[in-house]
């Protein structure tokens, strides 16, 4: 029996069909503040997560992710089903939404100024993003910075935040009443849990804002938080490396980045403590 939900997430309408109880449970707790559609709008990404039939249902059960009727990934163990949904949603956006230049970056906003934080997996950007958005900043995304090629604004695609391994405890201790998904162990990223996004961020998910800062974050144990200006050549190169679709947008992407850099300040950011990090980043936008 497949249950179906249709909801907007920023610029996209998703529909999620599933027979998986873990997915249903996590959807209702982590997406509790979202406005689900009663009617049928145009659906950009029809997603289905189903448990594999026949033999696999009993021996190490697995789930499949489908975009419409296409399965882009190999199946995963059933206990990773909610994480798979989130990863799958990222995949949908990064492989198809070329009306945006898309970077692998934590993206937050305050005072109508957006900071994007491009970084590698394991750099702590999602943890930092989580700490910031539970301290008054608006969550756009912990994974994806979407910059429109038309109006050059950054667009939110507000969704639960991906936390891994130690970060789960760190944020659990840092954020009052943090709501997490069920924890998935032994994923290809280690132990993973998703954090419910702040309600205020969810309610403003349709409001884009201009980019003001590009900050490359790095967690360094015991360091005093500091921002070091970084030159635009290095920034440009790193942006290309952290982009999902620069190679598809080609010249259009090239000019877009060059124009953004005219009005944006770029930094390397090292931190170890959230309070210091918050203070320093807030000083940029206040």
């Amino acid at each position, binding site marked *: 029996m497949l249950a179906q939900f249709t909801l907007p997430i920023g610029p996209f309408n998703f529909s999620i069909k599933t027979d998986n109880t873990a997915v249903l449970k996590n959807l209702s707790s982590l997406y509790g503040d979202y406005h689900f559609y009663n009617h049928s709008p145009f659906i950009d990404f029809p997603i289905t997560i189903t448990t594999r039939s026949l033999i696999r249902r009993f021996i190490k059960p697995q789930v499949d992710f489908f975009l419409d009727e296409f399965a882009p990934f190999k199946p995963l163990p059933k206990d990773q089903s909610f994480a798979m949904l989130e990863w799958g949603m990222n995949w949908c956006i990064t492989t198809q939404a070329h009306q945006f230049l898309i970077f692998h970056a934590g993206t937050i906003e305050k005072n109508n100024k957006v900071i994007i934080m491009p970084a590698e997996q394991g750099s702590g950007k999602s943890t930092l993003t989580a700490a910031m958005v539970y301290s008054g900043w608006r969550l756009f995304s912990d994974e994806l910075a979407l910059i429109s090629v038309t109006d050059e604004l950054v667009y939110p695609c507000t969704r639960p935040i991906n936390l891994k391994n130690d970060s789960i405890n760190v944020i659990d201790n840092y954020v009052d009443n943090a709501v997490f998904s069920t924890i998935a162990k032994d994923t290809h990223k280690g132990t993973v849990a998703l954090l419910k996004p702040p309600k205020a961020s969810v309610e403003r998910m349709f409001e884009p804002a201009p980019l003001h800062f590009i900050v490359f974050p790095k967690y360094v144990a015991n360091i005093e938080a500091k921002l070091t200006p970084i*030159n*635009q*050549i290095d920034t*440009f*190169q790193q942006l*290309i490396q952290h982009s999902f679709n620069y*190679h598809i947008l*080609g*010249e259009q992407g*090239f*000019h877009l*980045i*060059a124009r953004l*850099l005219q009005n944006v300040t770029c930094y390397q950011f090292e931190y170890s403590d959230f309070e210091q990090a918050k203070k320093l980043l807030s000083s940029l936008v206040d």
Partner: protein
Amino acid sequence: MLLFLNKYIRKNEIKEGIALFNTFTGNTHFLPHPLHKLIAFLAAEPCSEKALLDVFLSSFQKSLQEQENATKQFQQFITEALKSDIIIEIN
């Protein structure tokens, strides 16, 4: 032999130099100051390597050291730019 800026190259000035995009290959290149001047010269009109070097050197101090450094930078630029199809040599 004249040097031409590849007609597929698009350019954007950025703070520390110039960013170049080759619309044929899809590759992006960067040149720091003062090498960006070479692109501006070639964009205006093709010229010989010697003429380009002369114009480039004229923007540096006359000291021997400066001139030598600048020439070295220039040579490196020519080699790399030819290799990456930013500039083309035509008879």
